[in-house]
């Protein structure tokens, strides 16, 4: 049948359609090919297509998709007039002189976005860039993602200008449309238009322009967008134009822009208003360690037809309600999960754990509903997979059954920049669950896999949650450092020959705990032991490992603990009568303060705390020659204290390091850097021992031989030094 179809149809055409022609349809067959039918009927698992005067029948199993909105389009010749391009070469060379170390220069970029009276949208993008180094040759490859059932993409021109004035144009047949690749857990309906501009070489200019028409928008009143004006390579000129029909108001915000440039030029055209933002000569962004995401530091404009979120919320709310259904199967599962739970918190904890552990992360997107709201709770439960929206929806629905008010809410994770909340645009990249309990609002994120209730993912911290169902926006708090803590206890026995026996125990909570749990559950016991061995052997290969274990990473009723015990033979350095001892894995380093000066803030994922408690038993014939001094650092960004205390033959060290803030402004960088350097320096300080006169060190006077003394009945809560 397929062969008949193939031979009876005109050649397949590459581009997508402009118009919805009523009864016509585009059929995608299971082999990926497409057929355009003038009309289509479907009955009893068979489709009959009418194409011109011919008809063809297709079995259901040969059909992958039927689209009523996608139409194929004839290939169009592209513009070859490049008269205006030559003028950009002198500009490019001028910019290259100014920025001789750039890989490429965005000489000119123009983005025109038009919202039309009928609710459809048309955007046109043109980019002209100069290739200054080999590393920028990849820029010749261009791809544009689009929804074939709602959008068409048309390449207006794509070409390359060489320094000798020759122009090399892309030919239409070199443009390909296909399903692009994505990670193994992502499924969607998007397609990709891609091409490579020919003859691109160092010293040439790349110029391409394409148009995207959203002819079938989800909603004729939803028009929004964003534009960034600065990149990691210099920008000569960047223009954003947004046009809306007269009578419609455009709301916008401009961030990181000089005041005079953040306000657009506004021009009244015949039946529309055009807003223009224009910026020129922007230096490249030089990355710094732990800097905020680019979009938070470069000039940016966001625009929308809606100032507040009411319209969007009203649009999405019915979708939320449809999915937020407490069906029998959801109720049944909840009942099964909470059976025997002693109180409400335990019930919440069990449901939270179920959504984390037993709903596998798979993201299936297809329409506004699944993009923004997800799938029905019932469906996610049955499929046992879903993405953040699906998991957020399922958890909220399950909590509803135990009388806990909860909602899936949108956030922009703190590693992706601050979400725009000043105007209404879709700016969230993640969904979590907002819980209202006993007058308190808190958050859970079941997209993670190893968080013990009530902890949740650190990239959600310090964000703003958008609750569509309530129409509210709440601050997701930054937890105190105590909620993301590692507590380490070491008991150390030092022998006269430098042999060191260490008993190590760590407990964690928050993100640190989740990370340990995930790592531990992914390793088999033997693999875990091997990993600890590797860690210990990094200190010295002459070691004996007695214990390397941890608590059950799947026991979420108790805090995760790890313990190890090992002996490092002749570890402490001896030189003459001196012995120098450093606590293994005690040094601290802070790469975020490696630069002498910074332009950008330091941004952490969340707050954190680490405490160390060390007890060192000294060999009997050694005295302390030197103990490092205590140090205390207290600022709004870092709290640190270390105390060395000698009591007879024992040295006790207590150390605390806390970062209570997530963001350290660049203005406070020098004092912060100075504090961290003091802390790092103190962590490198060693204990200096001196052998008492008249005593001789016996090579056999080493620490307890571990293999011989390790008792089989010793507690099994142990682990190696994995900090």
């Amino acid at each position, binding site marked *: 049948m397929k062969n008949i179809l193939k031979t009876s149809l005109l050649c397949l055409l590459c581009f997508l359609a402009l118009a*919805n022609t009523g*009864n016509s349809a585009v059929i995608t067959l299971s082999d990926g090919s497409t057929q355009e039918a003038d009309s289509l009927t*479907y009955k009893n698992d068979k489709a009959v297509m009418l194409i011109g005067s011919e008809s063809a029948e297709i079995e259901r199993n040969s*059909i*992958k*998709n039927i*689209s*009523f909105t*996608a139409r194929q389009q004839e290939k169009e010749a592209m513009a070859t007039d490049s008269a205006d391009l030559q003028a950009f070469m002198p500009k490019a060379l001028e910019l290259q002189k100014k920025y001789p*170390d750039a890989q490429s220069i965005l000489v000119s970029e123009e983005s025109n976005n038009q919202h039309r009276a009928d609710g459809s949208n048309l955007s046109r993008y043109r980019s002209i860039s100069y290739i200054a180094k*080999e590393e920028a*040759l990849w820029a010749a*490859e*261009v*791809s544009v993602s689009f929804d074939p*059932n*709602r959008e068409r993409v048309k390449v207006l021109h794509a070409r390359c200008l060489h320094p000798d004035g020759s122009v090399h144009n892309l030919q239409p047949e070199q443009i*390909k449309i296909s*399903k*692009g690749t994505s990670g*193994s857990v992502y*499924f969607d309906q998007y397609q990709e238009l891609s*091409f*490579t501009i*020919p003859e*691109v070489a160092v010293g040439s200019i790349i110029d391409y322009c394409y148009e995207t028409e959203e002819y079938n928008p*989800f909603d004729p009143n939803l028009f929004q967008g964003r534009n960034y004006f600065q990149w990691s390579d210099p920008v000569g000129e960047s223009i954003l134009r947004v046009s809306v029909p007269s009578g419609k108001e455009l709301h916008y915000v401009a961030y990181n822009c000089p005041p005079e440039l953040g306000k657009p030029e506004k021009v009244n055209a015949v039946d529309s208003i055009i807003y223009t933002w224009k910026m020129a000569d922007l230096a*490249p962004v030089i*990355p710094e360690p732990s800097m905020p995401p680019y979009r938070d530091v470069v000039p940016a404009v966001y625009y929308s037809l809606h100032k507040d979120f009411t319209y969007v919320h009203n649009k999405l709310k019915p*979708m939320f309600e449809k999915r937020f259904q407490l069906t029998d*199967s959801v109720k049944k599962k909840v009942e099964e999960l909470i059976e025997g739970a002693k109180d409400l918190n335990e019930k919440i904890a069990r449901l939270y754990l179920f959504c984390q552990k037993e709903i*596998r992360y*798979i993201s*299936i997107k*297809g*329409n*506004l*509903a699944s993009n923004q709201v997800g799938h029905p709770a*019932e*469906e996610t439960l*049955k499929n*046992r*997979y879903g993405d953040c929206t699906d998991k957020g929806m399922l958890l909220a629905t399950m909590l509803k059954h135990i009388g806990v008010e909860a909602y899936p809410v949108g956030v922009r994770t703190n590693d992706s920049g601050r979400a725009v909340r000043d105007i209404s645009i879709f700016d969230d990249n993640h969904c979590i669950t907002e819980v209202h309990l006993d007058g308190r609002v808190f958050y859970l994120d079941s997209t993670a896999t190893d968080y013990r209730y009530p902890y949740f993912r650190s990239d959600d911290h310090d964000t703003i949650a958008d609750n569509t169902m309530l129409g509210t926006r709440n601050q997701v708090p930054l937890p105190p450092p105590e909620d993301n803590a590692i507590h380490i206890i070491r008991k150390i026995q030092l022998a006269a020959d430098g042999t060191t026996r260490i008993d190590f125990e760590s407990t964690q909570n928050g993100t640190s705990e989740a990370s340990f749990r995930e790592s531990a559950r992914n390793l*088999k016991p033997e693999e875990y032991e*091997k990993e600890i061995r590797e860690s210990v*052997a*990094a*200190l*010295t*290969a002459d070691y004996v490992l007695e214990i390397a274990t941890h608590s059950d990473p799947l026991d979420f009723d108790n805090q995760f603990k790890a313990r190890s015990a090992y002996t490092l033979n*002749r*570890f402490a350095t001896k*030189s003459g009568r*001196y012995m120098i001892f450093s606590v293994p894995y005690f040094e601290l380093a802070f790469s975020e303060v*490696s630069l*002498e000066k910074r332009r950008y803030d330091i941004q952490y994922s969340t707050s954190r705390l680490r405490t160390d408690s060390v007890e060192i038993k000294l060999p009997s014939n050694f005295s302390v*020659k*030197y103990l*490092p001094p205590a140090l205390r650092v207290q600022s709004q960004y870092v709290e640190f204290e270390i105390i060395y205390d000698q009591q007879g033959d024992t040295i006790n060290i207590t150390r605390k390091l806390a970062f209570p803030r997530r963001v350290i402004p660049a203005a406070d960088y020098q004092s912060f850097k100075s504090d961290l350097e003091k802390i790092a320096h103190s962590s490198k300080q*060693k204990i200096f021992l001196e052998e008492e006169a008249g005593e001789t060190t016996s090579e056999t006077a080493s620490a307890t031989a571990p293999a011989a003394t390790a008792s089989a009945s010793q507690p099994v809560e142990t682990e190696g030094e994995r900090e």
Partner: protein
Amino acid sequence: MKKFALTLILALATILAVNADVLYLNEGEEIVGHLKAIENGKISFAELNHGERVLSESEVAHILISKIRKGDDIDNVASLTDPVAQGILKNLPDPSLFKDADYVTLYRLNDLEYLSDNKIVVKTREIIQILKEPGLEMANQSFYYYTEREKCELEFAHTYSPEGHVFHVTDDAISDESLLSGTPEYARLKKFKMALKKVDIGSIIDYSFSRELSDVDEIHPFSLANTFGEREPVLHEELSVTFPAGMEINKVQMQWPQENPPKFHEKVQNGKKFWTWIFSDPKGFIPEQNMLPRSRIFPRVVFYQPYDWAKISKKLTEVYNEARPTDALLDDFIARLKLTSEMSSYQKVCKIYEAINRDIRDVGMGIPQMGSFKPVSANVTLQKKYGNTQSNLALFHFALKKLGIVSYPGFCSDKRELVTAKDHSSLALIDSTLLKIIIDGKPFYTDGGSIYQPFSFVPTYLQGTNATFHDADNGKFFNETLPVQTSEWNRFDRTVMVKIKENGTMDVQESLLYRGPYESGIRELKSIKEKEKQNYAERRVKGVHPSAVLQSFGLSDMSDLSGPAVLTLKYSIPEAAQLTSDKIMTFTNFWVNYDSGSASLATRTYPMQYWATEENTQTIIFEMPENFNWVNWNRQYQHISPDLVFMSNINQNGRQLIYSDRFIAHTDEFLTDAAYQNYRQCILTMSELANQWIILEKSDLKPETASSTSEVKEGKD
């Protein structure tokens, strides 16, 4: 044996694939159900659990149809008719037998049949029980296939729940994706992926797909290598090969153990020959640090269709001739190199090498991904400015020929591979391309290199490998072992001058010379901005000591690929040395950072690989403050053996304390316990040295004129 819950079958909530169509409304909503009819502009759609809806076509954007696959009409385990699934589910082993396993492969079949000498069908089926959370990953499957020469079909993908229900994959969780569409000449691979439905701990997944590969010949050869044994248990693995009895297929069996080898069966029936290997390993293995690849340790079968080398040569000559660029394009390319008669042949070759790397973007598709030894036309390479290693080397070869310099296209595999074209007559056993160039009678080799590597550097993964070169003029191939040149290629030298002040501050001048694989990392600095280079240098010195402050830095000309790649750093480290009293100053040698993590195991189960042969040297000269003397360690740290050499010494000479060391690895595989123990001893010696502290003691006496380690011990005492 634990019986699978066959009796719990009456499904209340089973989703059949027939109810998995998705209807997407224009306004953004989507409905899951079953497409019933499209007629007269109306769509009848049975919504799951909500009855039938009738919509106008104008409301609907599109409908995704979920294919009904084999077995999709079955919703409970008791109704299964497939004998394999039935048999396995009836005799499920007790999962407690695999207490540490993430999953257990209950059944795996790779059934390959040569339909003719140029057409192959491979059917793959896996039945896996998920035992732990990490095993859930198995529910997401993806594989690649050739766009033009291969037909790929998912036969079915089911999940059997512990309660006895059967669930089926639906097409919203299936994606068939194209790679490299923007460079169509290299868009030869597609990726098929799927997510199986309703997979829990305890669930069993069962999927099967088939692939039909056509146009197999000398230039598009096929081979299959299968290694038996993996981290997770496998209860039944079956590899089956069927081919016409008169057809020649070669097989190689290697690393065949005494205990539990795969069982091999052979038979001839109805004019066909059948080979079958059956394997079972209910334990799995625990990976070890730096172990050799699985393919070098566990039982392995490689089979391929042998070809006559003369015929391969003929066809390869043909396809290379087809890939030859037009004279005009090649002349233009060579003209742009501005070669002069004063240049030596070597200089000309370097010019071509650098031009190709500079101007042609590598799309990263190797021969295995292309499925062909036919290079893409050099016209495409020259005009579109992109290519892969083979097409770039083909262009190199054509340009050299034009200049009268002899070169041979070559092919090889990773140095760890033992089944190579040297002993087996098929290009199918090859995955990398090379070019051998004769300059003034001397051979040079390149794998194409990069803009960060000088001409003729052979990457570490190819050093010492067997390579097969094509001599088209004589219609034959010849084999060579690629050189291993430790001291010339894989080398790092560091010199540090350290002036120690009385307050413990150190003023440091450091010079680092990189050679071979290390070069790329440092030469990449040429591509970044000046401020980024400054940041790099600042971060680098902070890596030496958190208090270090960069004063200046410098780089040799990184664009000169033939010249040395040198980084210099000048910095100070306030309070670098710890003053434990007014007479004692102590510090570690910050530039000696050897750790023994790679020798963590007292003994190994599996042989060890080292990344490459190499040689590194360090010299650190401390200028001590007045009246301070070094407290002698009374020990030297050295390890000398045929495989590994580590030599170090430290010596006071007047105010200077001179430390130097040298590490040489002559081998990159430690196959026996004795070899590993030797490695471990060497690494231990180095890490002990790195842990050693330097103590300077102040005395009122004049410094000794020369103090060195007085007692020499080799290695650990």
